[in-house]
């Protein structure tokens, strides 16, 4: 089991973005907007020969990307999604880097890599998509942080249904369905000062207001157990023990809308 990974430096968020197509009210900028429900919607669904694409120019200085994650999509399991990279905006020739097709998952598509480029492009072909278009809520890319000491085994994953249920006098239930989301409660046990400070640095960067990605088991379940969310609770609490070792708990709440 790999150690957990956090991604909170979103390098595509400040990139210049281009796309093959977009609906006027749902432009490609939405792909890096905080809310997953704020979609980038294409006009077509792409084919293997002519895929839909979205590309990011991260600036004249190449940037290292070690993790890519896509959330809030309408892709079918037959969709072919690849990440490409190049040192210039030249996509007619084989790119300098091209990933294998990302593994489909209803919640997330995740890729771990180690590449440094100025131009990045995601190609999408989903010819059997019955919506007739491709929709993506959030694309995150950057360098993940992996603590040296992994979390302890007592992980709690809660699947929360915030739906509102009201019952009539006859016992009939009427519900307003809400989107279900996950919440992970994890604990680092007896970690040294350096790791405590790394976690504090991360918490200072995002607090409880900015989004991050949490991958519980990036080796075995990179897609199924990776969530886009925020730290829950107003504080980072550490129980300090002797020799500067301590325990630290984190709660990450998935943001699906």
């Amino acid at each position: 089991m790999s150690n957990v990974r956090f991604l909170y430096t979103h390098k595509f968020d400040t990139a210049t973005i281009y796309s093959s197509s977009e609906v006027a009210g749902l432009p490609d900028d939405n792909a890096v907007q905080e809310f997953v429900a704020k979609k980038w919607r294409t006009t077509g669904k792409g084919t293997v020969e002519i895929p839909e694409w979205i590309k990011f120019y991260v600036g004249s200085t190449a940037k290292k990307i070690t993790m890519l994650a896509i959330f809030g999509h309408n892709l079918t399991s037959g969709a072919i999604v690849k990440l490409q990279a190049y040192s210039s905006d030249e996509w007619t020739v084989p790119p300098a880097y091209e990933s294998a097709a990302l593994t489909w998952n209803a919640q997330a598509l995740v890729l771990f890599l180690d590449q440094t480029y100025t131009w990045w492009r995601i190609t999408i072909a989903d010819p059997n998509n019955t919506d007739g278009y491709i929709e993506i809520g959030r694309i995150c890319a950057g360098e993940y942080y992996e603590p040296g000491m992994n979390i302890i085994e007592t992980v709690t994953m809660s699947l929360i249904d915030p739906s509102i249920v009201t019952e009539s006098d006859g016992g009939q239930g009427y519900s307003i369905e809400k989107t279900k989301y996950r919440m992970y409660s994890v604990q680092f046990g007896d970690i040294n000062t350096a790791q405590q400070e790394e976690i504090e640095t991360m918490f200072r960067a995002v607090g409880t207001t900015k989004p991050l990605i949490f991958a519980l088991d990036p080796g075995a379940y990179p897609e199924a157990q990776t969530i886009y969310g925020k730290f829950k609770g107003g504080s980072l609490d550490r129980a300090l023990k002797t020799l500067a070792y301590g325990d630290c708990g984190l709660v990450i709440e998935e943001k699906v809308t």
Partner: protein
Amino acid sequence: MTFIPTNSGEYHLIAQIYLTGLTLYYADSNLSMSDGHYYDGRMSASALSRAFSSFTEPTQRQSTITITLRDEDLTIRQLLDTYVWGNRRVKLYIGKGRNLSDYKLEFNGLIKYPDGIDFDLEKVNIQLRDSRNSDWVILPANKFWKTDYPHLEDAAEGQPIPIAYGAFSYLPMPVRCIDTTLNEFKIADHAIVDILQVYLNGDPVNNTNENLTLATFRISAYDPASDVVTVSFLGKLTGYTSFTDPISVLYDLLDYENVLSENIDFETLDELAIEFKDLRCRRYINEEISSNTLIEDLAIECGFDVFIIDGRYTARSRCPQLITDLDIDEMSILTDSFKVETDPESLYANKINCYYSYSPQIRDYLLMGQENNIYEQGRLGQIIPRTINFKWLYQKSDVYIVAQRLLMLYSREINVIQITALGDAILLDLADHVGITFGHYFRRPMMIREVTKNFDVMSCTIYGYDMIKHMLPGYWTDDDAPSYEDATPEQRAIMGYWTNDIGEAKPGDPDSVKSCWW
């Protein structure tokens, strides 16, 4: 757009705010909708309340709803500084999912101005009001001015140019001289049907140069200082029939309010026009008055409700009916929400006084009549009168029909039923008829007088009048109709029966007591 509630669904309330040059899209949750717009999930909304003023004032009270937009990021406050928000249109839709075709226009209103917006550090509250509040106009709209009529008689300067609905055959109205050099007079600010007779100081005189389009005529001699000219005429006959019926008047008043035809429910109003086609209306409007007041008077006298649903003006007869728009029972009625009050508005009356045939000249009613429920007066030991002033209806037969109807309605205490219902009930609106099966009621029809929708839990609290026990005294009953003993409960509710002196259709059975009229 169609919204079909189910027991469970992903329901949302979404808003479109039409600022000049910018349309904003908000919802109660972040949504990328089928129309290609992102609806920012920063909105919540208060309950939406709609109500008629009362049974005796059957026009819609101003509907109110406040939307709250979260604004920690200052987005809304910056927009408040950049754009004009006051009096700008807001449409609220309720529905489920992402497809706009699964949504229903629930409220089509304007941002209240002034005093319609307040905010703090976290949120902006925006009060909405229904369109009706901005549609009303002052009538008559035009006045006599010497800039328009250079030879206008002095006394007419600044006076409203009258609007005249209906036939003034036997009630001559005063007219203004718009050209003292030609002795030309103008009757109304619109085309009329006919000029019947002109009177100079009460004596019939001949007239010339009739122009029915301009509603003008001339006479041979006139002294503005001493003469009074009156005329009997047929006014603005816009009628469905050969005379002016109430729905035709309603259409015409909405036209004065410049209500777009797309905002009028013609289908329903045309059906209602057939029901009211025999009522004759007349009104001479020579003093400024709100069009809302004119419509309200019309609705009270003729017995229908005027209201706005889905942003469209519509009307519904207040005649009690057993036909229901929706039946609800314990499967959708919320626990502890059922409540019945007895005549909370104190509408009871056993005598109706009617004043009618209003004369603008003497500013009073020419005729008076009354209807008594002698049985009820005796039973109660007290005469409780209600007075109705008829400003539109002027014929004795029409007035007495209305008076008898009102007497029947008011001669028993009106039960008011209140419930909160779930599911389909969210679709209910004012004047809808709901069949209640709950407690000892079985498909009991009630007419909704007030509705409050809580979108947070998709519930609808309705407040309405029990239409059987207190409002439905009985229709004419055919000879071959079943007797009281053989009739079903529903037949017993709607049919009339011969009773003994204390109202028992089945003598000795107190449960068979009906209203005893004659």
